[in-house]
């Protein structure tokens, strides 16, 4: 009866466990981390706090800017790749899944029943220079003996893409699935047919740019990459992009795309397992640096400063992204 008279307490009561958890395991460690980023000294001689140690920040940024940039590039590429794989997959499950829908969804999540580390190590075996794929190919002479994928950026990005794919599929699936399927019919009824020449052009441009970017990132010939991408994109765009999809289905599934891309990009940015297992020292991401600064070199101040920079960078990026896509797209979008 107390609660009935004091209804205002209820939301706060429900929030309390979560808030306590966040305070104990997020806010307090973050404060500690912030404090330790202003330390100087060593484990042996002990650390001392001084505000004058703010220089750790510019020093760290300066020293590890390559790894920062690489993290953004890899995480960004992986996010775009997961999107390109996940959207058609989610679309197919949502609209063409039929009675297999639940099974297909289960299959998307099924890899999670194995440990993250085991899955990544498996890729090492699959992609190995004489591994499951390239071993036979090399024996048969289809690829050159010096050809390799493991320990290259491609392996790292593929690993991230693979490991985070379900985080992109599920939100997009949900946003497509909960929508009114009649809307697609309504669009068709109102003369939204194949998107031509828009689909061809949009496909060519988007895919051409993506491939050119990959070319720049990995040192392949940019014009050839761009041309190949444009051709692939033009064909795909002509075949699959309808005006109904562009005007109705896609805009209404943006909240799912937004959620999915955050769920992939943010953890990918801080990831170090894929780079450590599938890459080489030249593919180290910022996560690898933080890990080694902290655990190997016991350089707590630098590790803390780097973590903080990463956190702030993510917050700023998300804020900009949300502003661009519209924050309401997270909560609204697909009502009615």
């Amino acid at each position: 009866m107390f609660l009935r008279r004091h209804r205002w307490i209820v939301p706060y009561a429900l929030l309390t466990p979560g808030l306590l958890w966040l305070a104990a395991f997020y806010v307090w460690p973050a404060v500690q981390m912030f404090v330790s980023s202003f330390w100087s000294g060593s484990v042996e001689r002990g650390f001392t706090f001084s505000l004058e140690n703010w220089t750790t920040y510019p020093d760290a940024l300066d020293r590890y800017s390559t790894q920062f940039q690489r993290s953004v590039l890899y995480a960004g590429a992986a996010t775009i790749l997961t999107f390109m794989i996940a959207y058609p997959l989610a679309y197919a499950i949502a609209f063409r899944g039929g009675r297999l829908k639940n099974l297909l969804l289960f299959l998307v999540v099924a890899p999670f029943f194995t440990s993250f580390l085991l899955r990544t190590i498996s890729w090492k075996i699959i992609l190995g220079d004489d591994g499951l794929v390239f071993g036979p190919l090399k024996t048969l002479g289809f690829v050159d003996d010096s050809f390799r994928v493991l320990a290259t950026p491609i392996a790292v990005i593929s690993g991230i893409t693979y490991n985070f794919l379900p985080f992109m599929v599920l939100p997009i699936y949900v946003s497509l699935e909960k929508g009114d399927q009649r809307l697609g019919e309504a669009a068709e009824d109102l003369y939204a047919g194949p998107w031509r020449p828009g689909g061809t052009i949009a496909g060519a441009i988007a895919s051409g740019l993506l491939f050119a970017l990959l070319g720049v990132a990995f040192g392949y010939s940019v014009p050839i990459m761009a041309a190949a991408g444009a051709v692939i994109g033009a064909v795909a765009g002509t075949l699959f992009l309808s005006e109904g999809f562009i005007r109705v289905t896609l805009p209404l599934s943006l909240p799912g795309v937004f959620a999915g891309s955050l769920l992939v990009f943010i953890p990918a940015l801080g990831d170090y397992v894929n780079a450590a297992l599938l890459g080489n020292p030249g593919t180290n991401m910022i996560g690898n640096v933080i890990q080694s600064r902290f655990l190997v070199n016991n350089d707590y101040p630098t590790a803390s400063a780097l973590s903080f920079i990463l956190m702030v960078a993510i917050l700023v990026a998300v804020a900009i992204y949300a502003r661009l896509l519209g924050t309401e797209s997270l909560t609204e979008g697909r009502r009615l």
Partner: protein
Amino acid sequence: MADVAVRLVQLTKRFGGDATGRRVAQYVEGANPSSGFLAVDHIDLEVNDGEFFSLLGPSGCGKTTTLRMIGGFEQPTEGRIELQGVDVTWLPPYRRNVNTVFQNYALFPHLTVYENVAFGLRRRKVADSEIRKRVLEMLELVELPGYERRKPSQISGGQAQRVALARALINRPAVLLLDEPLGALDLKLRKQMQVELKRIQKEVGITFIYVTHDQEEAMTMSDRIAVMNRGRYEQLGDPEALYERPETRFVAGFLGVSNLLPATAAESLNGHAAFRLSDGSTVRVPAGLIETGRNAVSLGVRPEKIRLIEVDKEVPAGMNRAAGTIVDASYLGVSTQYIVALRDGSRVTVYEQNVERATKAELWARGEEVVMAWSPDHCFVVEEENGATEPSVDESVAVA
């Protein structure tokens, strides 16, 4: 003769055991979702230009599937669809000059009312100034001026209904398809929209094909109605013909309330055919109604066509008569519904306007002996009961 807007030739849809088939099967009585079933069964139909045409029937009768085939959302298994003389059977929806008002409106939630209405014109690359003019005109027609900037989530069900109508009509289609468009509205709004729809249809002069399970709705608005059952239409005609002269048991039971009494043919007397009812009394029907070779039939009379008369009073000349006992009386305000038992126990429903007997005390009482009298012209004849399940639609009660 008016031009034909839509012609269906032997149109047939068989659903297989796929996802769509299983979804549709839920509504179809006796359908086997895994092996497929016939949803629309060789329909031949012509809808005239400028007509308000209704497909009326219970759920699962194939009316929505027929409409979806005309709209292009469903491909027929057999048969042909012609739109203004052109075969459109295999054209996709976006290449048919037909628009649809969907059951739950299917407005685009991310677009404003203005952009929803403009959607079709934009796809057809109409100039902006022209679009603006026509959208505003359309919103005027459906009485929603000033709502351009609202989102679908910010308007009521009735308003959404009008937007859906405007969004379809603005394209000036050859035919407008409406799939139970008023189903989600409350009764009062529905009645209001019925009048409104009819007005708009008259104003724009576009052919409407209207799908509904609500017989009153179909009667109110339609020029002609096809009453559908089990994938076919049982009778096609204007509302009056369907109501006054139903040709099958199903139509008689689905449109309004009918008394159907088993009867056998007797000798005709002076210009009228005669039938003997199960209680032994002889009644007359217009000669045109009797078909040779149909011996045992059911004789139908609408409840409001029957007058109740005191046993000792004279029955007007030329009227059919049958004696009975009042077994139940329900006062409905506008009228009173009586159940009268004939001598052999069969029941007849009678509606009497509460005019001469207006207060409760004056109504016929339970157990009172009465004579029922009705004109031979108000009789109709349908086939004898053959074990087919009758629809249990009995919702229309005494409309003044």
